[in-house]
């Protein structure tokens, strides 16, 4: 996983509450076998008109937000489906961090597995960031995970909290599975202790195929 330490980039504002993962990656794109290449289809139905022509009204298509790498969102960002295609698409599009007042649990978790930093700020702070983003073209922020702070060059400085373990994993780009496999002895001991549980019988009258 790509580590995240500090990132400075253009902010794109997505001024909608409860943005669900169906909007990030519509279902017709859930049939691929890879984790790559989803950036093109991020927010597909909002972003494109028929024939995949860019919708000039969608915020990410505005020239001033071209090349944005920090996504500014509203509450309950990433609700709905567990599809990890959503953070894959956000990352592949070029975003490295999200700023929002709250996130849905599964999406939040999925971000950390992919080196995408979801920063939680207060509603007031997010409101202020929307104001600043809209007020000045080229508005950029720096998201510093080490210092746990979001700053701009006009004196804004918002510190944020994050679980220390998640922070460490992201800073170092640690492989989750590798971390767990270190505890192989504990897993084996648990399996031995619970030999009869989970209960499962030889199935009666079940057909896997025809």
């Amino acid at each position, binding site marked *: 996983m790509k580590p995240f330490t500090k990132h400075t980039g253009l902010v794109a504002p997505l*001024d*909608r*509450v*409860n943005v*669900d993962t*169906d*909007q990030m990656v*519509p*279902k*017709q794109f*859930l*049939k*691929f*076998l*890879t*984790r790559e290449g989803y950036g093109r289809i991020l927010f597909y*139905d909002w972003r494109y008109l028929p024939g995949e022509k860019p919708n000039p009204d969608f915020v990410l298509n505005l020239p001033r937000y071209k090349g944005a790498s920090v996504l500014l969102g*509203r*509450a*309950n960002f990433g*609700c*709905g*489906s*567990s*599809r*990890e295609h959503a*953070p894959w698409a956000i990352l592949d599009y070029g975003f490295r961090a999200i700023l929002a007042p709250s*996130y*849905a*649990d*599964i999406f939040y*978790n*999925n971000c950390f*597995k*992919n080196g995408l930093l979801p920063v939680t700020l207060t509603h007031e702070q997010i409101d202020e960031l929307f104001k600043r983003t809209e007020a000045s073209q080229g508005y950029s922020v720096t998201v510093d995970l080490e210092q746990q702070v979001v700053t701009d060059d006009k004196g804004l400085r918002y510190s944020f909290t994050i*679980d*220390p*373990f998640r922070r460490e994993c992201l800073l170092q780009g640690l492989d*989750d*599975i590798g*971390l*767990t*496999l270190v*505890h192989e002895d*504990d*897993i084996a001991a*648990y*399996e031995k202790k*619970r030999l009869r549980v*989970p*209960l*499962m*019988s030889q*199935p*009666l009258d*079940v*057909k*896997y*195929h*025809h």
Partner: protein
Amino acid sequence: MAAKTLYEKIWDAHLVREEPGKPSLIYIDRHLVHEGTSPQAFSGLKVAGRKVRRPELTFAVMDHSVSTKNRAIPLADPDAVAQFDALARNCQEAGINLFDMHSRNQGIVHVIGPELGITLPGTTIVCGDSHTSTHGALGALAFGIGTSEVEHVLATQCLSQFKSKTLKIDVQGKRPRGVTAKDIILAIIGKIGIGGGNGHVAEYTGEAVRGLSMEGRMTMCNMSIEGGARAGMIAPDETTFAYVEGKPFAPRGKDFQEAVEYWKSLATDPGAKYDTTVTLQAAEIAPMVTWGTNPGMVTQVTGRVPDPGSFSDPVDRKAAENALAYMGLKPGTAMEDITLDRVFIGSCTNSRIEDLRAAARVVSGKHVAKSLKQALVVPGSRVVKAEAEKEGLDKIFRDAGFEWRDAGCSMCIGMNDDVLLSGERSASTSNRNFEGRQGKGSRTHLVSPVMAAAAAIEGHFVDIREWSGVDGNE
């Protein structure tokens, strides 16, 4: 010993390792897999040279993109074919049992788990699918995970997790006639909001919940995620034990008796504390219909489409404006005046035998409205389909003008060819009315099976409490 909740008991029983300041390692008893969210997990394993640790605790099924028409005809969608092939190959290589699209036990993953006895009380169950919360109806801890976590569970049979907060949702009193489990959960989501359960595991309690069948309980737990709660649970009781007994993978004989004794100990202890408690009176709940683009945008069938101006928070007001523009609805429109293009009875929320029986009672001897383009019944599994056909429900639906299909996710997510066209409006027994969910430009109204059935007959929503054949026991 401190009094514990159902969630805490199952959590504690599955702790492999805990360390202060770190997520705990919990053991996963059952890992369910479908074609949509697993291919990248299997390839990740391969790249890292890792193996599936417990293939016998992993069960795979084809459900999301399967055709609900004739499966003897090869699929025209090359991407879906590639995904099915990948699942078959991955399962074969790892020794995982796969219910493929031709198995007579095939169905939606959240329908077949409980139906086969793979889902049991007191177990931990995960799947790369947010509606895994369904299985909590049996008193299991079950939740959806991302593909990276699917890979993690394949490799380790464990999951690295922070403990959730607990949310008690108490539905007091008896359920009124014509009010179903679907209406109760929609009323709950309307009350707490679609992010209201974030960070929590929900436990549903109270007389109205206790009085539900297993099918009804599954409908409620299924939509926990639509209220933000990753898992929803109901303490196992006699209804649960009666449901589980005799299921193909369930313990039998003395093992079953021993299991029941253990399962009885799982109920939340008197005096156990929840982080949050929400209370509803069942008597105040009416048949519900969503008007917007998330399940929290919901009102009673006798209600009206709200005026965005009535929302005090500007962010909510804007969301309501967007929703009404997308849905093509005017503020103040009576819900009963909304006319429909298609009706879908199916999905992991409402496609079980009891759902189909209830809908069939409503449509029996009647016919779908001429104004309707399509009315679709998609059983949740082939076992449900076979049972329904044995009871003659397929004939009732067909005679009433419904299409009777094979099992799968179908029009809930539209990954196969069961979709709404842009601008079309559906009454759907599924779980998400998000923009584009049932097809680009689709307009979805979430309802119960009896409401969907009645709406199909009338061509618009109706107060089904006034209908005969609705006995309040669905």
